[in-house]
């Protein structure tokens, strides 16, 4: 196993084992008659994650590879910057829906993301956003009779 991948697997195994152990403790805090299955599952997950951890530890790379991993650490974060940004952008959109309402926030999100990811023609961005909202309105509001999310302001 390459040093970089070793660190990734080890970190993953440690986190998974920790989460499984916490869930096991929690499962045993519920009354016995309603937590048999959760107890069985959390204990099984903990055991499996320990096996995963043991396998990750067994595949420890040599010192030279470990040094190389240290150098590559920065590139690991670089490669995760964009996914994090996309996720935050989506989270911001959901928050905006609850504040400024569905229509305004959807237009802002669609136009903003398209512009951010490389679209620059305003008529394309606004046209697609308008078409999307028209389809959503026709399908969910007119056809299915659902209410769109409302914000604090609109």
């Amino acid at each position, binding site marked *: 196993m390459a040093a970089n991948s070793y660190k990734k697997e080890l970190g993953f195994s440690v986190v998974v084992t920790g989460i499984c152990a916490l869930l096991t403790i929690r499962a045993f805090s519920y009354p016995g008659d309603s937590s048999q299955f959760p107890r069985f599952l959390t204990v099984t997950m903990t055991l499996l994650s320990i096996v995963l951890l043991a396998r990750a530890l067994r595949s420890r790379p040599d010192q030279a590879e470990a040094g190389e991993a240290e150098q590559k650490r920065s590139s690991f974060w670089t490669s995760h910057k964009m*996914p994090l940004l996309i996720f935050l952008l989506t989270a911001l959109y959901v928050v905006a829906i609850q504040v400024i309402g569905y229509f305004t926030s959807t237009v802002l999100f669609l136009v903003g*993301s398209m512009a951010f*990811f490389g679209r620059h023609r305003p008529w394309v961005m606004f046209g697609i956003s308008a078409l999307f909202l028209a389809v959503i309105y026709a399908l969910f509001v007119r056809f299915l009779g659902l209410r769109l999310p409302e914000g604090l302001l609109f």
Partner: protein
Amino acid sequence: MEVLFSGIAKGGLLLLDPMTLFLILAGTVFGIIVGSLPGLTSTMGVALLVPVTFGMSPAMGLALLGAIYCSSTYAGAISAILLNIPGTPANCCTLLDGYPMTQKGESGRAIALSTAGSAVGGFLSIFALLFLAPPLAEFALKFGAQEYFLLAIFGVSVIASLSERNMIKGLISGCFGLFLSIVGMHPLTGNVRFTFGIAELYNGLPLVVALIGLYSIPEVISILSGRQEAVKQSRSVGRGVFGQMMEIFHHKILLLRATVIGIIVGIIPGAGSSIASFVAYDDAKRSSKNSGMFGKGSPEGVIASETANNAVVGGSLVPALTLGVPGNAVSAVLLGGLMIHGLKPGPVLFIENNAIVYSFILSLFVSNLVFVPVGLFIARYCVRLIETPASILGPLVVGLAVMGSYAINMSMVEVWIMMAIGLLGYLMKEFDVPREPLVLGLVLGSMAEGELARAMSLVHGSVLSLIQGMLTSPISLIIIGLTLLSLWQGIKKQLLARG
């Protein structure tokens, strides 16, 4: 047989509603678009439109979802053949010969063969579903609480053992799916577990919300962060494809073998279309007189792969409808759609909801007929859709995912749950943890816990009596044996891979 024929008659009448037929057409168009767009899977397509079916009658809603399932499984072949990018994982084998055919200037022929093969495979598998499902349903009536519990465990164990790259991660994923499904109230005692004070979780984690998050957010991240391969130069689809479709009938034995493989693989819980496709491709290569042509543009390779993956559709619905055990992730979502409409999958489904079930099965026949002309028509223009820039596609998928997860209970909390599951899905993808076991666990978990609770109450809470009951019941023993076998196969594969 009486139930079967009366069901077909009643279901046929429901299907004749013009609105249902229109929905099949609409679902087919949507499915072909979703299937041919790399990154958008059949599971995601079905999951996204489950909320749209809320206002419809069960027969209409299920016809729409079934049409998406059939057409999206087929449509992935279009991008596989034209661009060497499989639209869905089910079509990963099609590109091995489909793309070389395109390079030789035979893209029209390859698309015609894949369309015809998909239609034949799908059509025959629905026949199998129609005639195999009722006897299997009768057999399923012999299943008690403990057998259902073991069946759920078997379902998860199979997919975990199929996680070739890392069985341990597959098993953890399956167990975590089971765990997520038990969040909320206990089915018998009503005690609330693992809700962390969120009232929306008292009735459990909403399945569709979880599925939308698990499949859409990670794909959007991949599309927008440029982790997927860039789309290549488009190539036009040739004319005269209808004539070329008839060529598949020169390979009748191949068609039959690939269909049988697809149906069998589909029936086994956890084994998906991509596995059926590879098994059928391998079988076709071994039995072909022109095996040297495989990988260089063999029409037999395209036919075998596409026939088998569409034959999985009918096969996967056999255990899903009769036992409540989904054959793969898409049928798991379909099962979710079925439950949302108040139908309980299992042997009684064919008795209590006879007309709706048969209307659904018959609608799949229609879907398999409809996607042929629609698919061939769209294929000619599909190249443009496939080239939809990520900067437009990504935000639109996010918008649809947010609206889809909100629409289920008109709750913004559920949108946040979708986001959290989406983040989990991204992390799983990043750390190479298969998502399919989690989906099956999520669907099978509530059945496993409910049946375990019932089985335990039947033996007055004695674990020893329950184990004794399992070891003395022939059906339980068979399921335990199959579970151990599937686990052993997974372990064996891991050992062989390590050399």
